[in-house]
C-alpha cells in the first residue's frame, strides 16, 4: 500500500468500534526500514506504535483499542521521519546524482515494512535507503 493511500484514513478502535480520528502521517524508522508509529489527528495529535495496529485497508486503519493512542511526548526521542512531509523531497544517490523527487512510499500493511520509494515512474527498493533528511532522501547508487 502507498503511504498516500493511508494518510487521511479513519482510525477505528477494534475494542469499541469507535472512530478515534484520522491518520495524519505514518512515522518511518529509516534504519529499520519500517513504519514505527502512526500519528493520528484525534482532537489533539496522538501517536500509536505500529504494534497496536490490527490492520489497515482501503477504508480504515484499525487499532487494538483507544489506549493505543498516547501523547507523542511520551515517546522516546527517536528520529522518525513523517511520511506525509516527504512528497516532492529531492532523492539523491550517494554518488551525488539526483534520482528525482519522491512521489510516495510503499509499505507492506501486514508488517509495516518499507518496501519501496516511488520516484516519478521508478520504484527504488527500500533496501537502498540510506537516510531521510530535511534536504534530501539519500539512497545508495544503482551503480553499486
Amino acid at each position, binding site marked *: 500500500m502507498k503511504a498516500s493511500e493511508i494518510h487521511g484514513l479513519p482510525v477505528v478502535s477494534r475494542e469499541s468500534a469507535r472512530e478515534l480520528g484520522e491518520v495524519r502521517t505514518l512515522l518511518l524508522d529509516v534504519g529499520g526500514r519500517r513504519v514505527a508509529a502512526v500519528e493520528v489527528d484525534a482532537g489533539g495529535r496522538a501517536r500509536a506504535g505500529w504494534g497496536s495496529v490490527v490492520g489497515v485497508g482501503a477504508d480504515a486503519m484499525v487499532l487494538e483499542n483507544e489506549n493505543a493512542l498516547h501523547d507523542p511526548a511520551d515517546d522516546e526521542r527517536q528520529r522518525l521521519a513523517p511520511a506525509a512531509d516527504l512528497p516532492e523531497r*529531492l532523492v*539523491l*544517490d*550517494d*554518488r*551525488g*546524482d*539526483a534520482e528525482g523527487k519522491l512521489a510516495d512510499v510503499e509499505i507492506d500493511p501486514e508488517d509495516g515494512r518499507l518496501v519501496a520509494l516511488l520516484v516519478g515512474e521508478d520504484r527504488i527498493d527500500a533496501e537502498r535507503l*540510506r*537516510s*531521510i*533528511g*530535511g*534536504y*534530501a*532522501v*539519500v539512497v545508495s547508487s544503482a551503480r553499486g
Partner: protein
Amino acid sequence: MTRRVRARELVGRPVVSVAAGERLGEVKDVVVEAESGEFRGFTLNAPGALGSPLDRALAADAVHAIGSHAVMVEDESSLAEDPGTLRGDRADVIGTTVLTENGTRLGEITDVILDVDRDTTLVGYEIERDDDGGKRLIARPSAVSISGDTLIVPDDVDQVAPDELAALRAER
C-alpha cells in the same frame, strides 16, 4: 568510466551528508596545490546559527563522491573548521601564465579539470589563448612543469577543444 568536470562548475554545489540527508553547505573554492597539481579539497560556505555563513573545509580524502547535483560526505564530521588545514593555494592556479618551452607565452589558466569518478584527481587545465582569446584544454601529463607562477608546456602541446573533457589523455 571517467567523469570529468570543471572545478569552477563545482562552486555553489550543495554538500550533502549521506548519513543524515542534510545540506551542510555549498562549495566556495576548489583548492589545488599548484606545484604538484594535487586536488586538496574544497572550502565551503556553511550556514551559521546567526544567519551569516561560516567557513568550513572539506579535505579531498573526506569527499565521499562528487555527482551532478551534489558533493556527498559521510556525515558532519567530514567537515573541518579550519580552511587552513587544506594546505593548498586557493584559486591561485587560475591566472597562471602558460609558457612554451621556447619561451612564448601561450595564454593563462582559466580553470582546472577534475576527474571525479572514484577519487578526485586533477587531469587537465583549461587555458585561454592570447592569440584568439579561445579556450583550450591541456592534459596534465602533457605539462612539462608547473609552479605558483607558470605552467610550462611543449611547443607543440596537444590542445583539446574546450568541450571535449573526455578526450584529455590520462597518461603521458
